[in-house]
């Protein structure tokens, strides 16, 4: 099937939204968990599950910083993640161009 050429880790609506949103940031920037949740419109539990999968594949990196009494979690797309999204986009183009 043609879909086999698409990265299965990104080829899921929620994870595609997460990766595309993080890719909109300039290289080297990170987004807080709450802002990402607000932009994508997911529940925290659901978002954590998808972020964990992406982090296991080293597509994203997360960092926790303590700001007094508050802990802020930030998420960023890694170079590997950017390359994976680029390859996914290219594969999509080829698939749709062939239709």
């Amino acid at each position: 099937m043609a879909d086999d050429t698409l990265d299965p880790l990104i080829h899921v609506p929620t994870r595609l939204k997460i990766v595309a949103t993080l890719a909109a940031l300039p290289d080297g920037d990170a987004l807080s968990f709450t802002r990402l949740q607000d932009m994508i419109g997911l529940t925290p539990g659901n978002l954590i599950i998808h972020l964990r999968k992406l982090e296991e594949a080293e597509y994203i990196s997360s960092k926790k910083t303590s700001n007094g009494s508050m802990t802020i979690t930030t998420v960023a797309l890694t170079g590997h993640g950017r390359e994976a999204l680029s390859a996914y986009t290219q594969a999509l183009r080829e698939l749709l161009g062939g239709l």
Partner: protein
Amino acid sequence: MNHRPDPTTAENGGHFDPQRAATLLNLTTQQARRKLEPTPPWLLVTRAVMVLAACGAVWLSVRGQHPYRGPTTADIPVLIAFIVINFTATAAVAKRATVGVTGRSRLRPAEITVAALAWIAAAAVVGALAAAGVSYSLYPTTLLIVPGVAWAAVMAARADWAQVRYRARGSRRRCSRRVRGTGRGMGSRSRRPLPRPPRQRRRRCLATARMTVRHG
């Protein structure tokens, strides 16, 4: 009636066809860019209108002067209003767009202070000169170079120079390859492969590439 499925509601694990994936990718990228953009198009249009109003006010004040005496002090409130509105709108929009964003693209408080101080200093000097009765014609807009130079210095300090050098080397290499290719095509009939770059240059290139990978 034709029902067009909403790409954002595709179930995880279900069939997610490439067409819907492409639509969702495009939609999400556009929305994210719009939300994270610190200078949206409407702000640029507003700035353009304000610049037009400020320049129009100066033009109105000098219109019909004979002999020419330069802009009048009535222009000062207009120029100050332009600076204040522009600064406030830019800061408010940028603040809203960059909520939760951290990293290299964010301005540090020290950099914001330098830019703000440069503007304040330029405005103060203009005000002082006007109060002292010095004609505008003696110090035209050259004072505005001060904030411009300050901003250029801030941006130069923030730049990723390793990346800039790496890119410059890459384009120089491409350029020299093209030049060599053209020379060979014009001057020689043989189609020999391009000579390998000297070992030292190759080493330098590898070191730069490694450094770029390490710094992300």
